[in-house]
């Protein structure tokens, strides 16, 4: 399934190129963080990889194959939780897999324990706090044992302690062998979590470096401006 090779990826809704010939190669280990100003196609890239949208051009190769050979999961910025219990919100995601009911229950309880929601299994998921909801969404994805986990701004609008809890879970998922590809606007979070940074601007990858190198010596003018906090629309217009 890896390396994931993206070549000339284009997405042009109504003729406007959001992704404009994006090239990228992603290894199967660690946490890759996608950074970039608003509207540069970070979420779109994840959705295209997840197969939720058809690209207008370019190719995505998963190792030697055209489609992923192993499971991938995605956690959305606003995860959809069923009006059912916390337990059911994880367990239902395992139903399409060839698992016995006992195995589904065991796995569900295990991940809920690991994300700190074991004491709330019977509660209704819609009544959880923002941080708990995101942990539940991560638990659901984790229970599926994905080889690739796509996270779209998983801590947007969470407070520092909820963010810390989510980051701890993401690290654990990575440690268990899943590749994590995530977007964020939180540069502190990117510094804490990322093994490598993929910087997008103007519909392309401007820079793909180790996190340490990216934050110490960004190579592209767009990345330098972004890290210095310049206004995103200026970046878009100037380059």
């Amino acid at each position, binding site marked *: 399934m890896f390396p994931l090779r993206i070549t000339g990826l284009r997405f042009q809704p109504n003729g406007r190129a959001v992704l404009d010939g994006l090239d990228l190669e992603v290894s199967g280990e660690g946490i890759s963080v996608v950074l970039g100003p608003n509207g540069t196609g970070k979420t779109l890239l994840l959705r295209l990889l997840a197969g939720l949208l058809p690209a207008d051009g370019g190719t995505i190769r998963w190792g030697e194959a055209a489609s992923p050979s192993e499971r991938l999961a995605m956690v959305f910025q606003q995860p959809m939780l069923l009006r059912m219990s916390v337990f059911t919100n994880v367990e239902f995601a395992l*139903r399409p897999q060839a698992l016995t009911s006992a195995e589904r229950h065991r796995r569900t309880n295990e991940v809920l324990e690991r994300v700190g929601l074991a004491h709330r299994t019977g509660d209704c998921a819609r009544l959880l706090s923002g941080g708990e909801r995101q942990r539940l969404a991560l638990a659901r994805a984790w229970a599926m044992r994905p080889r690739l986990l796509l996270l779209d701004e998983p801590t947007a609008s969470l407070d520092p302690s909820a963010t810390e809890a989510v980051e701890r879970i993401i690290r654990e998922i990575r440690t268990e062998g899943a590749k994590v590809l995530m977007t964020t606007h939180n540069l502190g979070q990117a510094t804490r979590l990322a093994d490598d940074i993929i910087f997008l601007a103007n519909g392309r990858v401007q820079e793909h470096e180790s996190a340490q190198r990216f934050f110490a010596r960004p190579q592209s003018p767009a990345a330098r401006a972004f890290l210095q906090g310049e206004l995103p629309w200026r970046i878009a217009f100037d380059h």
Partner: protein
Amino acid sequence: MSQTLLDALALLGSFDHRLLEIVGLSLRVSLSALTIGTLLGLPLGAWLAVARFPGRGGLIVLLNALMGLPSVVVGVLVYLLLSRSGPLGSYGLLFSPAAMIVAQSLLVVPLIAAVSRQIVEDAWKDYAPEFSLIGIGRMQAVVLLLTDCRFSLTVATLAGLGRAMSEVGAVMIVGGNIDGYTRVMTTAIALETSKGDLALSIALGLVLMSLILGLNVAAYSVRCWASRRYG
């Protein structure tokens, strides 16, 4: 006018046998039709919400149009089906409560299906990406969405019940309004009013309105409770 109202209240207060019989049959027929309508309409609506096939748009337009189907037209259709010379005439159902249930079911199914289709489709737009990635199939999605939208779907079933209980044309045609056998509240009101027995008409009207109001209060309470309990 005030004497008529007093007579109507007296009928209600005395639990008039004739009145209770009519109310009982109305409830039996309408709730049976509602059960059939719910069992068929909800899955049909949910399936239409998630399925994608050629002609789906046309089917949705047809279903929406059937919501406004005149009840007398349904009455005539069921009459033709169940009459002695009709394809189902051998069952001898015409002018029976069963025929009234069939007619009301035909009115209720499209209404419940159309409303539930809209409710489930709105939810489906939100859930579709997650379900797709998880690998949830269409039929599983139908079950999950019906469960998830269960409290909103009470609106669809209430609309169905309202349609069934207030309907008069179809049950008049296929039931025949036979005293003690197929006379329900709406047909009795029509008949008694034309005969000039306004007290019974008003008493039945009060019962009908109270029932519908009571059911709506119950449904509203359930929705409020569910909103607090399930978010």
